[in-house]
């Protein structure tokens, strides 16, 4: 377990991860931009503060388990894992290429530390339930199961089947995080399939719900800490994020859900990230 890093340092790492996401996606020529950029703070918080894990021993038996249910956002996980030391950063450029361990959607058998194969939506929470039940049977309650889900993914019925089960069995060793960025492929979530009052919905399903600014590093870490203190119920953290966060022309535009930047757009995006939106002079300028 590495030493706790100051929030400012974590924010810098998240920014570096965003740069890597842009570079990876441009190089790959396909993939999802908006979700991964929006999730960079959450993944940085998880891998550099919240999770009990060991990049040099991905199968460590005491580790916390992190599931990425919305597998299309995997570029953020790859970039974060590389920064955390799971594999060399140069491997990020193999994303979506033949023979790569970094598949377009994550595959457990390809990459150590990737806990599940995912992509088809709605299956992460129920796998988390199975893991949480199994860990509880073995009295391994010091291991927490984290699952990151998309908001568009909540259209899937399988999610609500799992929501009921986690509540029934009071699986307090699950911490779920919804990336509430309000977009999906066909448009805004509320026009594709209105999700309505998510907090009330999850509460009605028997969950303890926390709401947080998903691009606020300190708030994310605090919410994860609070989640572990809830002993009666599974915890849902609704994390409000900005899709495309950090790149002005991508932010809040659903067209970037499933598209990568071309070279010109990538140069522009990287410039913006390196200068923190023009606030500072970029070191590469």
């Amino acid at each position, binding site marked *: 377990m590495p030493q706790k890093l100051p929030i400012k340092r974590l924010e810098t790492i998240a920014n570096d991860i965003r740069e890597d996401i842009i570079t990876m996606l441009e190089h790959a020529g396909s993939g999802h931009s908006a979700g991964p950029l929006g999730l960079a703070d959450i993944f940085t918080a998880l891998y550099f503060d919240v999770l009990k894990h060991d990049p040099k021993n991905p199968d460590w038996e005491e580790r916390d388990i992190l599931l990425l249910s919305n597998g299309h956002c995997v570029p953020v996980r790859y970039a974060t894992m590389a920064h955390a030391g799971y594999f060399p950063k140069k491997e990020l450029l193999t994303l979506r290429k033949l023979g790569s361990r970094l598949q377009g959607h994550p595959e457990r*058998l390809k990459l150590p530390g990737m806990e*599940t194969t995912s992509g088809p939506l709605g*299956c992460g929470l129920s796998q988390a339930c199975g893991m949480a039940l*199994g860990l509880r049977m073995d009295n391994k309650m010091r291991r927490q199961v984290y699952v990151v889900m998309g908001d568009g993914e909540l259209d899937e019925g399988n999610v609500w089947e799992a929501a*009921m*089960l986690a509540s029934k069995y009071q699986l307090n060793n699950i911490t779920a995080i919804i990336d509430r960025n309000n977009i999906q492929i066909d448009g805004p979530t509320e026009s594709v399939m209105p999700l309505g009052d998510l907090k009330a919905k999850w509460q009605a399903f028997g969950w303890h719900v926390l709401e947080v600014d998903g691009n606020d590093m300190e708030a994310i870490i605090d919410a994860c800490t609070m989640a572990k203190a809830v002993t009666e119920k599974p915890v849902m953290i609704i994390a409000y994020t900005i899709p495309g966060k950090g790149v002005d022309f991508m932010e809040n535009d659903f067209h970037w859900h499933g598209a990568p930047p071309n070279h010109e757009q990538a140069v522009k995006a990287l410039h913006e990230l390196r200068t923190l939106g023009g606030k500072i002079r970029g070191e590469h300028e």
Partner: protein
Amino acid sequence: MSNMHLVNLNGKLESESIRKGFGRGLKKAGELDANVVAACADLTDSTQMSLFKAAFPERFIEVGVAEQNLVTVGAGLAAVGKIPFVSSYAAFSPGRNWEQIRTTICLNDRPVKIVGSHAGLSVGPDGATHQMLEDIALMRVLPNMVVIVPCDAVEAEKATLAMAKDARPNYLRLAREATPIITTDKTPFEIGKAYVLEAGADVTLIATGTMTYQALKAAELLFKDGIEAEVVHVPTIKPLDAETILKSVRKTGAVVTVEEGQIIGGLGGAIAELLAEQLPTPMQRVGMQDHFGESGAPDELLTHFGLDAKHIRLAAHHVTDRKK
């Protein structure tokens, strides 16, 4: 009858539902290995998981009528070292949750044991919605998946115990109706092996599940017709025991496959693929001919849809005629 060494058709056969063998096997598997756990989708008595539940309540999970959740919870349990058996009716699991099985169990390579009960035409009066006929095809096409269809309760018990020790994803197909018990405690069972239950030189009857009994009855009828049928029982449809099957077909030169399911993609499909590539042979497939079933008594339905011993006998005559 000659060479009957693996099964006993003499005298009056006792009958028992195949799923009951599963129930006993699961409880035994649970006694042998504390990591064996079970989950069910609101059909605990029907699928015979109730024995396990009573013995190990803390290792049993009721997911409600939610088959997508059933198999994905199974994938999660397997991820933390459990050996999960997950059961429902075959019409719902793997009928409804195929993609979850594909992604979270097969591609993810988790050793979940999917148990589909009440499969086949013989679920009877419930009608076409509940007569699962496509499950073998659905499961057989998935990489990493093992497909097991026992012929009676005794074999189902052995299959269940073998599955608990198998590191791969497995599908076990069970039927509801009482089925004659044709194997004994001493009859061998190994995942991946086919068994010659009756030796003959003129035609090979390749059968699985409840239809193996019908094939044996057909062999008796054929014997009276002057045709010696070899009966090969295939309890594991994937991986297929090509060696045993090819050896028999090389000898007889004519084949009838028999199954209580769609011939497209089922056992008939599997044997046709094998023989077309390696040993083209006159062949006929007995089973559901690309249509759905309907309500009726199980025996009536088998006759109505051409799945009984008399129809197998007829098919055997057709293929042996084609040899000439």
